[in-house]
């Protein structure tokens, strides 16, 4: 993979991590965590582990949904 592309995805990963730590609302944290996960995927693809990528990409949302179950009591909307 190109150095520049790799740098962009690495920066995206760090942006996601810092955004997760800095934000206060749990929903904002989960959305930033999604950016972090998106930044990890190209590195998995770069090493050629496509099967691992498919499994990880399906397991990561499961983890997020589990966390969502713990916080559905404080509903924000109407």
């Amino acid at each position, binding site marked *: 993979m190109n150095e520049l592309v790799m740098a962009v995805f690495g920066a995206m990963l760090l942006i996601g*991590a810092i955004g997760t*730590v800095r934000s206060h609302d749990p929903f904002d944290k989960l959305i930033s965590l999604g950016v972090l996960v998106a930044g990890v995927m190209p590195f998995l693809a770069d090493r050629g582990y496509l099967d691992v990528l498919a499994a990880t990409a399906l397991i990561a949302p499961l983890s997020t949904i*589990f966390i969502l179950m713990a916080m559905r009591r404080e509903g924000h909307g109407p």
Partner: protein
Amino acid sequence: MAPEFVLGLALLIIGTVASAFPGRRDYLTRLIHLEIPAWGLLLVMLSYDEALALFTFGGVSALSTFIYVRVMQKREAA
């Protein structure tokens, strides 16, 4: 050093500090912050080509999130 290795170590540091001393001392905040070092360890394993360990770690970390959420829900249930 491989870029995955450096990024993984950075994520480990950010995530460990954020999870050990979170801004709001809250179960949910800590649980979400725990995901960050997990992805960091995943990247470190990726840089050493430990595919099977990486794979199992993903599954196990989703399962442990599930167990924590279950305990938290039982604690909060009236």
